[in-house]
């Protein structure tokens, strides 16, 4: 079975002035449907960079990202955006909710993307009930019309999760989703993500610093200096480290 999402020999470097700073130095990664993968690594290891590349927010300097085995680097900006919209849900550490919108509007924005005014108008009832259902699923049925400023950190992250999942993506990429939450709240958010992941059979990549949390995933990938160190708890893949140098 091919992985939903594959990274092959990905490198990424940033040009600072005249110098090229390598951030990723040949990363391979497979992500299957229904699989929870934890991505661990020190700050600055390149976790977020990898996540952005996998989520088509950025292009690798070299290497390939594949969706369902199909390379995406030759797709146009618009095609990549559409793929991102259909296949990928993002959850970030800093929620990134739009403060002018209520919880429900923030979630519905995901539905508005990619439709015209009239297209949305025709499906507005369905969209709304889907948004409400989604917010109810994350436990915010009572908070539909609250602005982000009126919500706690945990609640905001739940809205962000609802937003990421409304378009029914197959891949969920979470970048330190609990990094800003106290452990109790974090626990709730994690349970929520895990349960939805199970229910929807999502391919789930979770960037975290939390070893305990990582241990609950199917697989752990460790990153160090822009390379993958191991893909099972405590496991080091020799060919990966050889590639790095």
């Amino acid at each position, binding site marked *: 079975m091919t992985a939903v999402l594959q990274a092959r020999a990905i490198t990424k470097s940033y040009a600072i002035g005249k110098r090229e700073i390598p951030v990723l130095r040949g990363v391979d990664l497979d992500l299957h449907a229904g699989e929870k993968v934890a991505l661990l690594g020190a700050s600055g290891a390149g976790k977020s960079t990898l996540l952005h590349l996998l989520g088509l927010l950025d292009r690798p300097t070299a290497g390939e990202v594949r969706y369902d085995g199909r390379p995406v680097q030759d797709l146009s900006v618009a095609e990549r955006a559409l793929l991102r*919209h259909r296949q990928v849900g993002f959850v970030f550490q800093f929620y*990134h909710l739009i403060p002018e919108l209520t919880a429900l*509007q923030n979630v519905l924005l995901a539905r508005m993307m990619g439709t015209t005014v009239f297209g949305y108008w025709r499906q507005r009832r369905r969209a709304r009930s889907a948004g409400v259902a989604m917010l109810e699923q994350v436990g915010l049925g009572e908070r539909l019309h609250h602005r982000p400023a009126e919500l706690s950190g945990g609640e905001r992250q739940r809205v962000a999760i609802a937003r990421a999942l409304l378009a029914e993506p197959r891949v969920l990429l979470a970048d330190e989703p609990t990094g800003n939450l106290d452990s109790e709240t974090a626990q709730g958010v994690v349970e929520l993500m895990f349960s939805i992941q199970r229910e929807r059979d999502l391919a789930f990549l979770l960037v975290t610093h939390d070893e305990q949390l990582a241990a609950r995933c199917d697989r752990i990938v460790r990153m160090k200096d822009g390379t993958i160190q191991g893909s099972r708890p405590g496991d080091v893949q020799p060919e990966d480290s050889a590639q790095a140098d």
Partner: protein
Amino acid sequence: MYRLFLAIRYLLTRPINLLGMGGIAISVWALVVVVSLFSGVMAVIERHVQEAGADLMVTGLPEWAEWSRVDSALGDDPNVAATAPRLLHYGLLLRPGERPPTPPLPGRSALNGGDQPFLFVLGIDPDKEREATEFERWLGSADIPPALRVPDPDAPLADRDGTPTVLVGLDRMQREGYAIGDRLRLTTARLVPGEGGGKTPVRLELDLVVGGAYRTSHGGFTGNNVFVAYSTLARALFPDRGDPVQEVAVRVHDQTQLDATAERLQRTVHRAVERDGLGFGQVETWRQRNGQMLANVAHQRTLLKIVLIVILVVAAFLMLATLSMTVTEKIADIGILTAMGGTPGGVTLVFLASGLVITFVGVLLGLTTGVLTSVYLEEIRQGVLWAFGVDLFRLDTYNLTRVPYLIEPIWLLQVTLMALVTGLVVSAIPALRAARHDPLVSLRGV
């Protein structure tokens, strides 16, 4: 869809953007109202001068010009429908024995006037004049009270008890308290050849009797001209000449050929009134005769347009300022919108949409209020007059019963386009700044 939705949410949560919207609306409003008013005034002036004149006028004919020759030459033109000879003189028209005050003298084409005793005397042939101008309508004007109406419109200038008749403008009649049958004396002079080839003015007095009032919608014409019979003036000014003529009023068949006809007739007249190889007389259309006056109003309208367009630009700067603030505050949203499936370029269109929403609403507001204001200018004038005692528009200047307006769809279109383009440019500037922003920067957090 999300762009429009977000743009509207951004705007609604930032009432300061109403400033730019209001600015656009006000300048569009002013552009519509002021130009409609001026165009209305111009249309009124055109209508008035046209009604009080002939399609074409031949003027400046020398004193030796012969009506029979001029008339037959003009009559040969296919587009000439009717001609009427006029003699033009001037003088003081007073009750016998009355001493006039010393008044200012306005030009002959002043928009209004006629409140001084010095005036122009037109010698006309009523039957011909009727064919060439709206003379019939001038006598039959509904504004003339029955007591002042010419008793026999078929022979308005027939002598009364052997005395020649004069037709006086309605305003003058009423101001001076003239009644039909009142005796008046025209005091003037005529030039007679003196010794040595020069000309000497000789005092000339004509006793006249008031035959009735006339009224055109051109206040300046009605106020400054009186009519007497062609024969009366011919006898007094040219005692030894059969058919003198100084001006000819011409009616044409086809108004659309007016300018071409005028050019043609100019050559005709020069041929018919020629001495020593030199042609005399000048042919002008009614529009040319009043061209300066119309051009003046048009010029004022252009100046105001420029001033108001500058105001539009100022309003656009206001919009630019508030939009820039919005972009600065909201540029971070680009990251998440891109992550949700927007293209980076498409996402920045949110900011363009914000500007366009402001512009659209502003233009729409300005257009509707502008058109409404134009239509109800008279009601507004009365309201202001009642509330503040200030008359914003002197109706009597143009002999009007209400403030004129002319809404030209072309102008509305031009204003709309102008405002939209300005709005687009002003919205594009901050949107371009947003477009240069890397979405990943905001996603990486602080």
